[in-house]
């Protein structure tokens, strides 16, 4: 909100400069986002009259102008042409400094000496106009030699751009901001001057008012103004509105806007001639009704919205014929707008239910200065005071304005100001600081609270302008925030707490870190690819599968939650290839999502209004996916990477089993499942990226193999934690080991690592079994290959004899035979 310092000074003595006040406002939570300065640097600029205009020989862009600024003729070279003899214009004489710091000097151009500069609006910081000089005759009755500021009635001013927090409806006004400052600085807050009805005729003799929906409209006042002459506002009102960022329209509309900015209460003036029966009523909109608002849009009313629990309730203003006049508190209709011919005015000042306004405003996509204030909650007691101020302002331009006695005042339901008990010690318990009850009471009184009580505690009643203050424990917190805010957060103590409970990571988080460390050690760059992708990306891997869709995506390319990180990673890799840095491994640890209809394990969670129902939400699955894109990478290097990672995680029981049903995106004949022997759980997959996917996403690369590893952390965490818990150290044997090689002709169906696992378990003398060669050839039976293992035997008790070793070897060969493998 834009608030001129000069306007604040109407309410409270503020000798400080804008810069001096800025930290105070910030510290009050009224954060100053910027300060705009107007009318500064004009001290040296005076009014001059154009007496003569001459061409300069050889110059076609500039002319010589002779002006009089009170001290006789002065020759000035000027490039502008928008003035005539006798016009009055601003002159910056030699030595003057302009608002941007530019100092005027005597200059000679084309052999002619220029003794100053004639200025445009922009050069003076008064407007954006730079098409010509600021001709003053249109604005005022200038006198030669007079200071420009006096001539235009400009006081230097600073305009604060203040960001008002959502819980401070009262601060959405000059008076509200002034009240905070006055309280903080311990100064008095002045009341604005207001008018009183000046005609004995009662309002009800001329107009009627009524509320048909007391839950939606808490108060409706209608004031009758007659003998109105619609005209431009007095200059000071227009200037003040403009400095606060609003356009001056006419005295009536300006008075309404002025009061809203100053006191926070929106008012709405109607041309009484166009209000049937001079009657204003407030009711619920009925289904099927529509209204054309001032912005020219026709709006269907009372239609349920998309918002949670939005039944479509709209509050409308109607006249005596039940014709719609406007959407209450948001925007009026065109029919009863103030015009040049208006003579009688009905001024509505009301209180509307904030939630109703908020919902309507959101549903119709219609926000206005009024709705911004009503949806936060205006002061229900402030309506007639605002009208009195409105009339006071209007009287400046319409001295014989008539305001009828006893304005119509109808009440519905309004919130009762909260009453909060503040016991001695409450403040210290909340803030850790002992702010005395005495200081607290002073602060609260300054803010308009009614304070009772003494040493034992305070009973405080919030002003009606502070609907944000609740009751009970919540209200206590609200009141304590006000005390802390005005006392200053910067003055509150700090204390770093300690507690006996230990901090730390849980097992899952530690595992996550180990995995990240290991993949980085194994050469991966950890990246972050989008969680949201396009439908076509989703279809690449999961055509026809239900997907989790965003209702309101920013762009259609980011409208579906990913079910795999593979597409994002391959694409990220492709981008790096384009940059000439594609020789890399990329890894991402992140969440993928399955639509509740596409998984056996949807997440069930609390939802609905009040959290009273159970919702089926997408399954969220944490995975680690790696794409190996270095020049020599392929399925084998992916297996090698997994082997290192699996060993580091202590997953000795997990075997690599080639499979025909790998996940989408993997090369269908170069993929293996990672299966835990003990639980049969699949931890993930290893292999290559489907060549078709690579070509689709990175068309410039054909026949480039990309290794891939994809691990399910939800499963991995289970398996790896289980493994670790049951793990005790096995002391290595101090006796020499015996190493034996076994070449076993093995059917293709038997996985090499399953066979190794079986051999390892066949005898307690086996220390380790390692595959070291695979041979296929015509001399072997079809559908078999020879797997050569190196087996290390040892015992903790003795050096093994040759007989023991060959005995154990026989046991292993026998075990292999049960799986269909024979010694070669």
């Amino acid at each position: 909100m834009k608030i001129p310092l000069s306007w604040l000074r109407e309410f409270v003595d503020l000798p400080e400069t804008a810069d001096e006040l800025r930290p105070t406002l910030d510290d009050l939570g009224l954060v100053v986002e910027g300060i705009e300065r107007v009318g500064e640097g004009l001290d040296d600029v005076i009014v001059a009259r154009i007496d003569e205009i001459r061409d300069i020989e050889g110059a076609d862009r500039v002319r010589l102008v002779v002006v009089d600024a009170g001290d006789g003729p002065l020759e000035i070279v000027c490039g502008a042409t928008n003035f005539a003899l006798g016009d009055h214009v601003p002159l910056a004489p030699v030595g003057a400094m302009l608002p941007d710091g530019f100092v005027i000097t005597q200059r000679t151009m084309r052999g002619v000496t220029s003794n100053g500069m004639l200025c445009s609006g922009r050069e003076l910081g008064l407007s954006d106009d730079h098409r010509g000089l600021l001709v003053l005759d249109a604005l005022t009755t200038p006198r030669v030699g007079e200071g420009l500021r006096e001539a235009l009635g400009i006081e230097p001013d600073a305009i604060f751009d203040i960001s008002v927090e959502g819980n401070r409806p009262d601060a959405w006004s000059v008076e509200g901001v002034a009240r905070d400052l006055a309280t903080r600085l311990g100064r008095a807050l002045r009341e604005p001057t207001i008018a009183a009805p000046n005609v004995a005729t009662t309002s009800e003799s001329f107009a009627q008012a009524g509320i048909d929906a007391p839950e939606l409209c808490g108060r409706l006042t209608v004031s009758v103004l007659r003998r109105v002459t619609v005209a431009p506002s007095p200059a000071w009102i227009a200037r003040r509105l403009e400095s606060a960022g609003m356009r001056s329209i006419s005295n009536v509309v300006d008075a309404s806007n002025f009061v809203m900015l100053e006191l926070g209460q929106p008012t709405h003036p109607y041309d009484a001639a166009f209000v049937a029966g001079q009657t204003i009523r407030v009711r619920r909109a009925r289904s099927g009704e529509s209204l054309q608002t001032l912005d020219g849009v026709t709006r269907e009313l009372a239609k349920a919205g998309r918002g949670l629990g939005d039944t479509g309730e709209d509050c409308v203003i109607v006249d005596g014929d039940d014709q719609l006049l406007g959407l209450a508190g948001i925007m009026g209709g065109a029919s009863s707008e103030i015009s040049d011919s208006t003579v009688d005015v009905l001024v509505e000042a009301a209180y509307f239910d904030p939630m109703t306004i908020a919902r309507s405003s959101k549903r119709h996509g219609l926000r206005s200065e009024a709705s911004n204030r009503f949806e936060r909650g205006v002061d229900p007691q402030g309506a007639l005071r605002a009208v009195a101020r409105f009339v006071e302002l209007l009287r400046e331009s319409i001295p014989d304005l008539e305001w009828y006695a006893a304005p119509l005042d109808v009440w519905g339901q309004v919130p009762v100001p909260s009453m909060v008990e503040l016991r001695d010690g409450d403040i210290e318990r909340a803030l850790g600081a002992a702010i005395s009850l005495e200081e607290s009471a002073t602060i609260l009184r300054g803010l308009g609270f009614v304070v009772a009580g003494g040493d034992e505690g305070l009973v405080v009643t919030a002003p009606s302008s502070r609907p944000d203050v609740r009751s009970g424990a919540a209200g206590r917190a609200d009141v304590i925030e006000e005390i802390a805010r005005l006392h200053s957060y910067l003055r509150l103590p700090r204390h770093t707490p300690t507690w006996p409970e230990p901090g730390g990571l849980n097992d899952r988080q530690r595992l996550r870190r180990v995995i990240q460390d290991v993949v980085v050690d194994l050469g991966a760059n950890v990246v972050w690819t989008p969680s949201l992708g396009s439908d076509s990306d989703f279809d690449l891997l999961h055509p026809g599968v239900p997907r989790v869709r965003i209702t309101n995506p920013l762009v259609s390319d980011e409208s579906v939650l990913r079910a795999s990180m593979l597409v994002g990673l391959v694409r990220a890799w492709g981008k790096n290839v384009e940059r000439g840095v594609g020789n890399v491994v990329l890894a991402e640890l992140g969440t993928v999502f399955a639509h509740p209809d596409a998984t056996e394990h949807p997440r069930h969670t609390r939802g609905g209004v009040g959290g009273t129902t159970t919702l089926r939400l997408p399954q969220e699955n944490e995975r680690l996916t790696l794409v190996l894109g270095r020049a020599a990478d392929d399925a084998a290097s992916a297996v090698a990477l997994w082997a290192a990672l699996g060993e580091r995680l202590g997953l000795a029981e997990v075997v690599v089993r080639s499979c025909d049903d790998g996940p989408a995106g993997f090369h269908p004949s170069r993929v293996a499942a990672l299966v835990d022997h003990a639980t049969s759980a699949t931890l993930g997959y290893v292999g290559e990226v489907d060549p078709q996917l690579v070509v689709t996403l990175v068309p410039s690369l054909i026949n480039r193999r990309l290794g891939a590893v994809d691990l399910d952390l939800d499963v991995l965490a289970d398996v790896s934690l289980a493994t670790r818990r049951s793990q005790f150290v096995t002391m290595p044997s101090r006796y020499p080991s015996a190493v034996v090689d076994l070449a076993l002709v093995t059917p293709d169906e038997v996985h090499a690592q399953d066979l190794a696992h079986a051999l390892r378990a066949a005898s307690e003398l086996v220390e380790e079994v390692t595959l070291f060669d695979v041979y296929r050839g015509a001399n072997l039976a079809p559908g078999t290959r020879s797997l050569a293992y190196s087996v290390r035997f040892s015992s903790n008790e003795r050096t093994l004899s040759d007989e023991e070793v060959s005995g154990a070897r026989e046991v292993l060969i026998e075990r292999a035979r049960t799986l269909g493998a024979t010694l070669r």
Partner: protein
Amino acid sequence: MTSSPLENLAAQKAELLGLIDSFSTLDALREAEPGITGKRSILSALQKSLGSLPPDERAPAGALLQEARREVEAALERKREDLSRSARVASLETDRMDLGDVVVAATRVPLSAGHPGLITSTQRELEDVFVGMGFTVADGPEVESDWYNFEALNIPPAHPARGLWDTFYVDLGDPETVVLRTHTSPTQIHLMEEAVAADSLPIHSVMPGRCFRRDTPDSSHLATFHQIEGLVVDRGITFADLAGVIETFTRAYFGAGIESRLRPGFFPFTEPSAEFEITCTICRGEGCRTCSLTGWLELGGSGMLDPAVLAAVGIDGDEWSGFAFGFGIDRCAQMRHQIGDMRALIDNDVRFLRQFS
């Protein structure tokens, strides 16, 4: 009666279909295509000959020919698909590899140096600071119901404060009932609900995670970003404890010379609420463009848990009190490393990633 140029059409079509069927490779098919449907094909010749027909016969004859052409083209397309499918099957078969047979010790694996992502390492560093101060770490889901993301946090439906969070809604169930979490604060609610159910208060936890806001990305905002949230619920916790935790954190993470301060703010789930600012990391408090000459940079939000939030999760506010705070992990990284444009974080440019170890 003159003979129609189309009198042999059925036979000619059958011949073409037979020809199409005879191809066994994609290359051969591609080579033969111009002769089947191209300008020199029999179908095109027939098309030209239609001009010799009496005007009233041209239309029906043309339709007949079009039909035949469609059939031939469809057969061609089917064959092309068949052949590419079998080509893929064949190439996959050639590629077939039993990954269980990979001899790891004999595999040539390229060597490369990896780098942790900037967000990963920043998150970890932040976690470590808080763990050192006695916090545990908690995770939470990224898709949330309205209850967790808003209502339990004292942001009822249609509350104007919802405008503070530009929300992505998930198309599940009734409109606007499921969201991509707009902040990590819903994890607070999960933690408190769980602690109440397990009777395991107090809580001292930080909650990092990915969040989403419907906000067009620019140099300082991304629609997807990462936050870390802190929550303390214990006996006798005050606003002074909140200020102390933030101060200790600021010094531990940003280093000497960087201080913190609180100023009043508004969050529906805390009261009193405070924005917290740190000494500008660019000018060290001297005042510069980045900090709008104030010497301070806004980092995050904080406050004492609002009694309405405690009530929503069933915690007795007379016995327990607490505070929460939250800020952007990405923003911390940006401040620490002076990253001019946040979008660099999602570019995944290896030349960017390599600068972090």
